[in-house]
């Protein structure tokens, strides 16, 4: 080995050491703050942990008891059904509104470009502020909506305390908060649509409507799928809106699974049982994340 190649090996080693030094702290910290809690959650889901009963700590005598209880828990079953309705309607509405607005705003017009920023505001507000905004709108004494309708001669009940309307009220607020997300993703994809595709359809004499249905929509299928999946996972986490607007009520009509789990843990101290529910929620979001990674071929593309 020549002196020069020895030196080059030394440089290579130093470089590798530098990269290891860059990467190791992050991976170590991530492992401690994310993997360790996940394991901890799994372990506590195997116990009847209840903070008001110290003897339940580390009681592994019947490890699958929580999961057996879950199957027989009617309120949990109800929460899954509420979750399904909330997820279905919010994802559907956000996709439709986001897609429609993206089509409308896909223009080089100066005013339209300025408006795009305005439409982003609901999404960038702190979730708690979104909840306060809708609390105001749904409180009859001070609500501009109730006032407006009363001028038209229509009186409606307070939506968030009315059993027929409470979930719809949450769906409306959530849709308002998150339509900008699907809009933004769709808009970004629209701007990458190849001009030849548009020109070819125009040459064939396609109407605006045919163009949307046969050219634009197929082109956007992938983006709409990924946007919908992200919204679906996020809808499982719905919390501030429900906490502020309805507290899961009336009864348990707006109690989604995440909220039920929160109440079991932090209102009733049943941390073991809540952990078991959360393990299932976590598994669902990891599975959906995996679907997203497959859908966008992420990690292989970059």
């Amino acid at each position, binding site marked *: 080995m020549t002196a020069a190649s020895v030196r080059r090996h030394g440089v290579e080693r130093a470089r590798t050491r530098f*990269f290891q030094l860059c990467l190791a702290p992050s991976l170590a910290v991530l492992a401690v*703050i994310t993997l360790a809690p996940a394991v901890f959650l799994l372990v506590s889901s195997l116990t009847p942990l209840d903070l008001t009963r110290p003897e339940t700590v580390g009681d592994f005598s019947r490890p699958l008891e929580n999961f057996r209880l879950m199957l027989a828990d009617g309120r949990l079953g109800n929460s899954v059904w509420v979750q399904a309705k909330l997820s279905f309607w919010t994802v559907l509405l956000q996709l439709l509104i986001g897609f429609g607005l993206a089509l409308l705003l896909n223009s080089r017009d100066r005013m339209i470009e300025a408006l795009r920023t305005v439409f982003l505001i609901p999404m960038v507000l702190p979730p708690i502020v979104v909840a306060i905004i809708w609390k105001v709108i749904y409180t009859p004494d001070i609500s501009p909506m109730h006032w407006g309708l009363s001028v038209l001669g229509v009186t409606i009940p307070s939506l968030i305390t009315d059993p027929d309307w409470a979930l719809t009220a949450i769906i409306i607020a959530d849709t308002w908060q998150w339509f900008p997300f699907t809009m933004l993703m769709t808009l970004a994809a629209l701007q990458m649509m190849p001009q030849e595709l548009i020109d070819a359809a125009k040459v064939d004499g396609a109407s605006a409507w045919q163009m949307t249905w046969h050219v634009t929509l197929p082109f956007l299928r992938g983006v709409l799928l990924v946007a919908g999946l992200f919204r679906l996972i996020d809808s499982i986490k719905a919390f501030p809106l429900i906490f502020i607007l309805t507290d899961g009520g009336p009864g348990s009509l707006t109690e989604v699974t995440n909220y039920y789990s929160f109440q079991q843990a932090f209102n009733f101290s049943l941390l073991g049982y809540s952990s078991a529910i959360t393990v299932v929620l976590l598994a669902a*979001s990891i599975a959906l994340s995996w679907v997203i990674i497959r859908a966008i071929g992420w990690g292989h593309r970059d």
Partner: protein
Amino acid sequence: MTSERRILNLLALALAFLAMAPFLWLLQMSFKTNAQVFTFPPELFFTPTLENYAALWNTGFRQSFLNSLVVSTAATVLPMLLGVPAAYALSRWQARAASGISLWILASRMAPPIAFTIPYFLAYRHLGLIDTWAGLVLIYLTFNLSLVIWMMRPFFDQLPRALEEAAWIDGATTAQGFWRIVLPLAAPGLAATAILCFLFAWNDFFFALILTRTEAMTAPVAVVNFMNYEGWEWGRIAAGGTMVMLPVLVFSLLVRKYLVHGLTGGAVKG
């Protein structure tokens, strides 16, 4: 401009106003006295008052606002210090390992917050971290560290390697090349990432609700507490909401190009 385009523009303008109305309503409420809030028909032209803000500032809210600032700043600086070099290493050295941990990173962004809250709550009770700044900063790392790594890696990928390699040939070490050549070029990415970290920490409600009591309570939790105990003080609630949203509204519109990228844990380029 064609007449069709003009109609579409008008439609877009009307929809924008409709989408904005709920937000503007809260804003104007914060400048009204409580009596004005309950007045119907609502006065659209009134003399704005700052009394809600003044009253709010003289309660515990000021401390909560400070807590939010301190915690969000720390939850920005710390993940940046840890994550930026890691992103560089993943970009230049272990690109293949990166795809292996992509699910891990995305899952920690998408996991329901309660999945972290239960173990952290139990651990913090033993460690004495309930209701402390440190406790919040640590749990905010769970989403901000992965955010930094996955936001920054594509920025580094885009920088041509030839630049650092030229520096290496001139005798610079890898660290010097990173510090003097790569980081300055990645400055826009660093700024956008830092702002997003700050936003996500600032906007958090759930973790702060469960892991703080009084001392380290953040502004969002303080506003909600206020609403629960003095629910009729709508002007003051609106002022609290406005103070929570104003700092982040400005920032987030600055980084609108990167919003989707950040919200999807870096999985999608907006």
